[in-house]
């Protein structure tokens, strides 16, 4: 037998510890090391509360999270590589599927990058820019609605989920009318838009704004003042300004610290400097502040949408440069695809050169001078940046998306460590990561 103060001895009944007195500090330290309460919990990647295929690895001491890490990549799609084998215009079809809740932001950011490479930012028709802003702001509403709805569902509040998806359907009806699709639109194209607004779109958007003005206060009634909701959200997922800066967090997370940083104001694109709107902030640095900001941003988006409708003037929606412009005067054909009968009549009936040009533009695409640019837009989640490199070819040489979900998700560890397990869900929901954007 060893001379240890508490030495184990194997018997037929199991291990027997003989305590012979001595230094209890050592015993306590040993007991602490063999702490049975400390467990590693693996949440996901397929878990109903992890906001998609996110894997959370939590080290738990009782109910307290001592360490939290994310495992991502379960939805890695290789979109950035796929883009390199398609023309510049086809690229929008891919980027729209990155963060599938903010398709118009992905498309616009990508197209702004391509247009900057081409040097045609000044030639984009006003109407195209206004429609881009209109759709982006509608998209901000639908994205925030999904964030609030799924966030509520993860807390166990099913009602708010039903409300959120009810209102999102209204936005999706507008998308479907304008682009023909509920999701994954590929509507914004380098140089402008795929086609003009269909008849009746303006009226439907106006009706939507009116209806949404009535519906939005319901969220306040349902959640904002609700003591249970506040109890779950307040002081949870704390991340202050210094943390946001260090971790590169943008969007509602950054604005919840009181810094009114919004690219629409600081680096305006698509003519955002001419719209009248406010950047809501909160100073709570927590999940509740982020929720309030999202609600208020939807109100502001409605204001911008109304201004867009007021300034919609007739005009082209594609650049005049025929070497870049895809035909944009499309109408829905019987096969369900967009087509321009006038254009077909012209190229097939009157002009051989126009036919050749059309064929080359669509199959081969246009060339973009070599170089690289960075274009950024303020997506509902934060700064969505696109680094586009061209080698002078008809295809992108490299496109990298700096997706806000990806960067913001890094702050999960800082928000959760030291908190309770149940609050991890709240913190992750308040980041609003969309795994399609995180993994691309």
């Amino acid at each position, binding site marked *: 037998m060893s001379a240890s103060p508490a030495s184990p001895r194997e018997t037929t009944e199991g291990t027997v510890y003989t305590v012979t007195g001595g230094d209890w500090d050592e015993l306590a330290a040993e007991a602490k090391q063999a702490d049975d309460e400390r467990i590693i919990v693996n949440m996901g990647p397929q878990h109903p509360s992890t906001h998609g295929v996110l894997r959370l690895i939590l080290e738990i001491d009782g109910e307290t999270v001592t360490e939290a890490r994310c495992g*991502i*990549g379960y939805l*890695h799609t*290789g979109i*950035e*590589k*796929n883009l*390199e*084998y*398609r023309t510049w215009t086809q690229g929008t079809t891919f980027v729209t599927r990155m963060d599938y809740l903010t398709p118009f932001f992905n498309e616009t950011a990508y197209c702004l990058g391509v247009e*900057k*490479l081409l*040097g045609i930012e000044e030639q984009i028709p006003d109407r195209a820019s206004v429609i881009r802003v209109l759709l982006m702001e509608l998209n901000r509403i639908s994205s925030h609605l999904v964030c609030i709805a799924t966030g509520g569902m993860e807390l166990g509040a099913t009602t708010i989920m039903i409300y959120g998806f009810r209102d999102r359907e209204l936005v999706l009806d507008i998308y479907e009318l304008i682009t023909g699709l509920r999701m994954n639109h590929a509507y914004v194209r380098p140089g402008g838009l795929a086609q003009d607004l269909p008849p009746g779109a303006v009226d439907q958007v106006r009706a939507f704004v009116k209806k949404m003005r009535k519906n939005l206060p319901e969220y306040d009634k349902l959640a904002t003042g609700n003591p249970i909701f506040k109890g779950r959200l307040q002081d949870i997922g704390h991340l202050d300004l210094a943390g946001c*800066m*260090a*971790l*590169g*967090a*943008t969007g509602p997370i950054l604005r919840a610290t009181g*810094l009114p*940083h919004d690219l629409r104001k*600081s*680096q305006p694109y698509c003519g955002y400097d001419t719209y009248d709107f406010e950047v809501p902030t909160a100073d709570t640095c927590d999940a509740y502040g982020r929720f309030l900001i999202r609600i208020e941003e939807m109100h502001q988006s409605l204001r911008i949408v109304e201004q867009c409708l007021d300034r919609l003037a007739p005009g082209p929606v594609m650049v005049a440069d025929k070497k870049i412009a895809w035909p944009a005067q499309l109408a829905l054909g019987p096969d369900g695809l967009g087509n321009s009968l006038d254009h077909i009549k012209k190229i097939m009936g009157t002009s051989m050169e126009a036919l050749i040009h059309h064929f080359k533009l669509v*199959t*081969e*695409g246009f060339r973009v*001078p*070599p*170089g*690289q*640019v*960075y274009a*950024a837009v303020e997506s509902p989640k934060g*700064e969505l*940046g696109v*680094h586009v*490199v061209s*080698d*002078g*070819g*008809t*295809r992108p*040489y*490299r496109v*990298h998306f*700096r997706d806000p979900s*990806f*960067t913001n*998700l*890094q702050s999960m560890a800082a928000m959760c460590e030291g908190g309770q397990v149940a609050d991890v869900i709240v913190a992750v929901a308040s980041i609003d990561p969309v795994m399609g954007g995180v*993994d691309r």
Partner: protein
Amino acid sequence: MSGPTAGGEPGANGVNPDKDLNAQNLPGQRGDHGEAIRVQRGMFGARNGGDTSGYGGLVRTVRLPGEATRPYGGYFDEVADELEGALEEQGLLPESAIEKTVVDRGELTFHIAREHLPRVARTLRDDPALRFELCTGVSGVHFPGDKGRELHAVYHLRSITHNRLIRLEVSVPDADPHLPSLVDVYPTNDWHEREAYDFFGLVFDGHPALTRIMMPDDWQGFPQRKDYPLGGIPVEYKGARIPAPDERRSYS
């Protein structure tokens, strides 16, 4: 023509566009002093099936925009002056840290020598006149044709204080893809550097845990490099087989 003669093989017509750029029968080139990244042959890039356009013998070196000369315009001069001054104060010759400065399409790019990257980034973040607080991550670019500088790491830095945006670019050779990590300066680069490692094999020395982030841990190769195939499979239809996108005829 003063630049390097990368890809300087004569074309089918016996004219080397790099050497004979002043020849009257050749089109002018945009930015003839930037980094050569590839050589374009023919007009349409089609390698199989032949090019009947008559431009099949055309050989052209593709270059990225070259070094800019002062004044850069806008706030770029101020940023460059402040950065050079701040580096000099630290006893670092700006010429040794900043390889070249490119201004293109209204954006400022500093090409930084890799050993000085952390110092430059820290200066850009901490100097009150610069204050680039926000790093939007690193994007890898692979230029197999840019010999000795195949892998580029591109950082975009945003200053909220001064409302500015600049780009840092670091080039490393394929054979030695090491560059210092910026996680110490910008913790946000943690995942971004892991992503660049995962896709391009850029090794960020000093990163706390440089492991794969997107691909499975046991994945072979770095999928977004240009020498890595797209990995698509041919698609079968009734009576026809369509090759994967990377194996189809290309016009680029």
